[in-house]
């Protein structure tokens, strides 16, 4: 009897100990993660303002905001997917196919139908991704790597390799227009960002999705259907890419088959830099938004400094490695702390 109570006391103590550790690590992670985005943000902003000519000029700021907006929109969907412990490498190809379909539909039936057609196309691609991942049980990264190739092939077959010109003037005016001096794509990004934040933080689907990403076994045991969560997440990710594709088509006025190649890397970089862990269970929409602005600033700064565009690849790769090692080192520190306390 006495040994029983002793064990219980031990269990109680270790539980409270591990809860304390978890809380402390969580706080520490929050702090390092906000520094992870804040420090590069301030550095890049300062370097840009000091060294890059015309960095703060009206046209450059507009340009940065448009690019940041488009990146952020794709990033929201990716944030959800990564929080659910998945990945979507096909966003670049999805964006391209949505943009091409939108461009053709705009020329045929006008702006509204074109926009809807582009987003609908993207949703179909999202369903395909979700279906391959949930029904065939193909791991997300390899499934979306494959569909990246398949969708890109579809884009090139659809366009025959030639660019599609858009001749609808109002449609082209949409993404290049401003409201009170703020470019419309940026406003779209802010509105959608708020919607995604609400979905992730305040709605049942978002809470369940994040829970399923953090601990799939526990989520299943509490009655969450992971396959449904995943299917919806991949459709939302594809739909965000579709919205961005329509915005890009509108901004550029012409769509070619190689639109959005390499986009997946930029998007993953901003999501992870924004504080969403690759291990799942934590999605940070505000961070994604801030990181999108950061990346747009980096790209624009490098352009203004006349750095060859090849260096942007290297900058992006370095940024990604920085963000990921931060994430990896943190996860390891947490694991060590937990194991240390428990054993």
């Amino acid at each position, binding site marked *: 009897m006495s040994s029983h109570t002793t064990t219980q006391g031990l269990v109680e103590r270790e539980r409270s100990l591990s809860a304390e550790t978890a809380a402390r690590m969580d706080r520490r992670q929050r702090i390092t993660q906000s520094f992870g985005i804040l420090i590069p943000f301030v550095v890049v902003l300062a370097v840009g303002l000091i060294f890059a000519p015309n960095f703060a000029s009206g046209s450059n700021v507009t340009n940065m905001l448009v690019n940041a907006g488009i990146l952020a929109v794709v990033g929201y969907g990716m944030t959800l997917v990564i929080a659910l412990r998945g990945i979507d490498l096909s966003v670049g190809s999805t964006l391209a196919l949505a943009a091409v379909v939108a461009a053709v539909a705009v020329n045929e039936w006008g702006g509204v139908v074109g926009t809807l057609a582009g987003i609908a196309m993207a949703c179909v691609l999202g369903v395909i991704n979700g279906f391959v991942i949930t029904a065939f049980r193909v791991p997300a990264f390899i499934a979306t790597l494959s569909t990246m190739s398949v969708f890109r092939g579809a884009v090139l077959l659809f366009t025959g390799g030639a660019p599609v010109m858009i001749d609808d003037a109002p449609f082209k005016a949409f993404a290049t227009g401003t409201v009170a001096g703020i470019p419309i794509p940026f406003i779209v990004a802010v509105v959608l960002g708020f919607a995604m934040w609400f979905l992730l933080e305040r709605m049942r689907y978002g809470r369940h999705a994040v829970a399923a990403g953090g601990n799939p076994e526990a989520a299943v045991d509490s009655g969450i259907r992971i396959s449904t969560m995943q299917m919806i997440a991949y459709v939302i990710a594809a739909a965000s890419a579709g919205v961005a594709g329509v915005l890009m088509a509108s901004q550029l006025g012409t769509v070619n088959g190689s639109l959005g190649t390499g986009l997946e890397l930029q998007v993953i970089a901003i999501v992870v830099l924004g504080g969403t862990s690759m291990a799942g269970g934590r999605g940070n929409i505000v961070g994604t938004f801030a990181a999108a602005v950061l990346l747009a600033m980096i790209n624009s700064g490098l352009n203004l400094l006349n750095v*060859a565009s090849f260096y942007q*690849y290297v900058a992006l790769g370095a940024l990604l*490695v920085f963000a*990921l090692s931060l994430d990896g080192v943190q996860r390891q520190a947490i694991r060590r702390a937990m194991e240390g306390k428990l054993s």
Partner: protein
Amino acid sequence: MTITNYEEREAVADARSSLGIRVVQQLSRQYLLAILIVLAFAVGFVNPYFWGGGNLENVLFSAAFVGIAACGMTLLIAGGMLDLSIAGVIAVASITAAKVLPFTSVGGAIFLGVVVGAVLGLVNGVLVAYLRIAPFIATLGSLYLFLGLAFIWTQGRVVPIRSTNFRDLATMSFGHVPLVAVVFTVLAAVTFLLLNRTYFGRTLRAFGSNERAAQLAGAHVNRTKLIAFSIAGAMSALSGVFMAGRLASAEGNMATGIEMSVIAAVVVGGTALRGGRGTVFGTMVGASLFAVLGNALNLLGVASYWQYVLTGSVLIAAIAVGARRRDAAEVKGAG
């Protein structure tokens, strides 16, 4: 549970049966080889030109280019890892070879290219083993890093290769069998021995199936990861150097998208992405299968864009079938 049983049964059967029976058993498992042969005959039936010596040589060339890189990838996948940066490694390594060719011997250029490939592989290994980044995302990042380096180095231009000695070596054939195909066969044999007969291979397969257990058993997991990535990098580089010799030039975009074909060749060949085991013979058949498929599409005059669609679809199908057949465990490359 089922997997262990399967392996136990296999081990018992292998021990009991004689060599002849084992060969038959091994062959009966190679349904893929049957598919390859049927496909080859079907293509040859539709277009007899397929069996022409020159065309078969082309097929062997493309099988070898993908296959040499796929040997390294087989090692990585058996260890539960993955390399998406092959196109970048090939670009940097072959540009290195092309740039130093005017100043060194042919052998020196090839050697330097391969060394550069091994170093780039080592970079991947450090990202994965020490910075703890999931292999697919780490190598996706380094793909762009390496491509960026290649473009910066060449300023986006093509580096021509004027050395006829080098070009002759890369395109050399014995009858209709290219030298690259011979190199591929030798490397496949080496990979098989590495994977199945060495301490390195055993460690690789051990942590491929259960990293925690391997670590607790005292295996040098991180060191083995570094070696595996270096070998994979060196093999990709070798494939790239031969490719450059055949193209008579090297540039940043020379192998874009090849990682898809390489992974597809390995996975279709029967090496499961979940890690723990790898079949080099399957990889050889897989590489040949994709070479025949690509060649068939060309011969039939199908738009080359279909190759993107086909490679992706075949890869999904192969993994989906694999997931259905064995009770799919968690896949390692993802995290």
